């Protein structure tokens, strides 16, 4: 059973009291409990099962403007006492930092609305097994599929965040995740692809057969790829990849990257950074949203933020510490974005595909080729050559490269946005990127 709020709150207040007693001027504590059960299948039979049950505690103690932190998974009172002592001793010799402080009291979340983030349904392992059987049956129906691996994870979590300003709140969340990876083979090649579905509520998970079929189809169509020559070409990014572009953007506007001066978007507030048709929104209160939250990791209330309005950068993602450095108030984004998305563009997917007579459609990228300081981008890629709106043949062993500063200004979005994950994007086209191949 997942520990209740009462248990977590009692641990949290034990920690705060102890820290205060030792002489800490302020303190903040997070206590969490999480239970997770996973069943893995491979080639239509049980491969592994995994159960985890974990408590976690993290404490920050302040002595004026000095601060340090500890974390542990051992919640025995005796251990907590030893750790807080150690933490406070460390705090005493850590140099002062004028920007260290708890969040401003008036910014803390006052009321918790029910965002329907917890589904108490227990999906027994036998039912997970039945789901995965159906999934792998459909995933392996084509004889070009030579290996299937799938898994179902059920997670239930509960947490409490408390600080010495009197904030003390938390709530339960759940997630159910089904995923499938398939391997297909023909005389020329072996390829892998995947599909997954992750939801707060069990009833919203994709049908097992749909998920299996999708994974298999995505994999089979990659077989017998070609390498193309090096050229400038328009690139269409599948939703899987375009949402990653949005995550990169979010990292570049975090108050930490901005205050340290290590972002290519520093000093760009109120300036054009995207094409003027682009709007980017971060909305924390979507019912059942995978990224939804009532408050951020410091307890600060988070409201919907328009990050990009008609291509213009309107807001950074601000936490308390870096906010103070930048002279900005926290906007409840300590810990990053919530439900982040591009608003729909005004062209259909079909029209986007036909916009150029020849383009490259990218379904997967590999490598860590995004440089947030310079904006340079260079990654390995897999996809398809598209001619006159039709997929011609699969392409791999190529790289795509550009610089985000130019790429962002050349984005064209389709109108096929769906809310599947915590970061969502319509299909995206960027004209004039460099492909390196043969």
């Amino acid at each position, binding site marked *: 059973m997942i520990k209740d709020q009462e248990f977590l709150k009692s641990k949290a207040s034990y920690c705060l009291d102890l820290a205060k007693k030792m002489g800490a001027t302020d303190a903040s504590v997070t206590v969490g409990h999480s239970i997770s059960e996973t069943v893995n299948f491979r080639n239509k*039979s*049980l*491969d*592994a*099962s*995994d*159960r*985890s*049950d*974990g*408590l976690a505690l993290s404490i920050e103690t302040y002595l004026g403007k000095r601060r*340090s932190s*500890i*974390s542990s*998974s*051992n919640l025995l009172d005796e251990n907590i006492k030893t*750790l807080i002592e*150690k933490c406070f001793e*460390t705090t005493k*010799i*850590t*140099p002062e*930092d004028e920007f260290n402080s708890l969040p401003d009291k008036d910014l803390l979340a006052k009321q918790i609305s029910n965002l329907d983030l917890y589904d108490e349904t227990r999906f027994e*392992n036998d039912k997970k097994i039945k789901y995965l059987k159906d999934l792998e049956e459909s995933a392996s129906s084509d004889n070009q599929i*030579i*290996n299937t691996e799938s898994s179902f994870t059920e997670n239930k979590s509960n947490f409490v965040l408390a600080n010495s300003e009197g904030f003390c709140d938390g709530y339960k969340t759940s997630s159910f995740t089904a995923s499938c990876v398939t*391997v297909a083979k023909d005389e020329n*090649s*072996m390829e*892998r692809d995947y599909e997954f579905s992750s939801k707060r509520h069990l009833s919203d998970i994709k049908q097992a057969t749909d998920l299996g079929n999708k994974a298999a189809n995505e994999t089979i169509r990659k077989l017998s790829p070609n*390498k193309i020559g*090096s*050229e400038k070409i328009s690139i269409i990014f599948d939703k899987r990849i375009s949402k990653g572009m949005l995550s990169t953007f979010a990292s570049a506007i975090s108050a930490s990257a901005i205050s*340290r*001066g*290590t972002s290519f978007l520093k000093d760009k507030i109120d300036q054009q950074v995207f094409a003027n048709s682009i709007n980017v929104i971060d909305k924390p209160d979507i019912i059942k949203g995978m990224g939804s939250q009532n408050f951020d990791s410091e307890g600060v209330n988070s409201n919907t933020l328009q990050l990009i309005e008609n291509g213009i950068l309107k807001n950074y993602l601000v936490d308390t510490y870096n906010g103070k*450095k930048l002279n900005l108030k926290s906007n409840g984004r300590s810990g990053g974005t919530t439900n982040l998305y591009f608003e729909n563009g005004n062209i259909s997917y079909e029209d986007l595909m036909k916009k150029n007579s020849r383009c490259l459609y990218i379904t*997967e990228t*590999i*490598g*860590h*080729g995004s*440089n947030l*300081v*310079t904006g340079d981008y*260079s*990654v*390995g890629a*897999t996809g398809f050559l598209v001619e006159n709106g039709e997929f011609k043949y699969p392409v*791999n*062993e*190529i*790289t*795509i*490269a*550009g610089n985000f500063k130019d790429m962002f200004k050349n984005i064209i979005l389709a109108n096929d946005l769906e809310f599947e994950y915590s970061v969502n994007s319509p299909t995206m086209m960027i004209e004039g990127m*460099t492909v*390196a*191949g*043969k």
Partner: protein
Amino acid sequence: MSIFFDKSDLTRQDTDKIVSETLKNCDDGELYLEESKSESILLDDNKIKSSNYSSDLGFGFRAISDEVVAYSYSNEISKDSLKSSSENLKSTLKSIKGTYNHEIPKTNKKLYEDINPIEQKTLKSKLEILNKVNDFLRKKDGSVKQVTASFAGEQKSIEIIRSGGEVITDVRPLIRFNVSVMLEKNGRKETGVYGIGGRQSYDDYLKNDNWKHVCEEALRIASVNLESKPAPAGEMKVVLGPGWPAILIHEAIGHGLEGDFNRKKTSAFHNLMGQKVASEGVTIVDDGTIDNRRGSLTIDDEGTPTERTVLIEKGILKGFMQDRHNARLMNTKSTGSGRRENYRHIVLPRMRNTMMLSGNQTQDEMIKSVDKGIFAVSFGGGQVDITSGKFVFNCTEAYEINNGKIGSPIKGATLIGDGPSILKEVSMVGNDMMMDPGIGTCGKAGQGVPVGVAQPSILIDKMTVGGTKL
């Protein structure tokens, strides 16, 4: 007294009983107990930004029957908790009919000392060094706009209890010191990163003001990048420098030779054993037995002593890296490659220190032989698609080569290649094999483990460079 039992209602006798009873009809399994203490201290933006200490304690209980692995972990070490894990394992493995395999080889050789590096150096002296790093770099070069420096230290104690009461233990220290510097000049910003580390005390790595050398190296890389021009795009010759660039070997070859992917036949290498996969000059080993290296382990996380595993010998594929589970199913022996990030994770076959051995050519010969290509000296990270065999890695310091001479530095670019064929393109192998500085972490299935790499300079005849200049 054991650290795992002295604060619990669980006794060693109870534990032995539960473990033996749970695993009695299984093919394999063990109780893995782990205690870790770790610290991270970060200086950033002229200030000590964070100082964190963490302690973690828990167990992972594993039972294997034929191909099925049941796993349960908890961070509560108690009789109830262990019993409920045992029930959970038994309910997963409904029809157990295995034969328990007891055999674990022994080792007398320890590869590192039982030290706790965190306690061996005072916090005050660590803070002092971080502040010295900051002052040193900012004074040395006026274009330094940002300095980040960090210490990370850890002591991990593990105890493996097998059916029948056999107990195997290990205490593993690990430290890392890292410096990152950002320069700004004429409106351009570039960063340089360098670090050192391994399984000794902080002072073993920092003696003789060695932190200065780390600072200078980070600064040098950033300065080179400030002068860099756009990288070329397309297929060309690539000379790789010695040491850290061996992450090419790690990505291109290493992952594909891990036992699990080959048992499942999802690796591009699974049907190439005994075949020629590289030029004749290429020999690659994965060695877990080098003293004090970041990727070394006295025993792996299943209790098997590590070894030097030959993967490729003179171009021929000779071996895979195995944990016990995959080895048993493939009818071979564990190579001491069973590793896990911590008690929360299952064991997987993983790399330790992956090394290409020296040949007899020089880097000069390689550069002179190239009309048009690039010379890559340092890398960020890499990634591989095991199944298609395609891999990438990102240059963080590279130069163009024109008519046998090193030219201007070029911007960071991704290089992409095909694992099973790239080593056939190696036409020269240098005599200058070097280990990396001790900073690598490898990710697989959501688990990060410390690893090392090594190689001499090599010349690759054909590889795709992902720049922007056509």
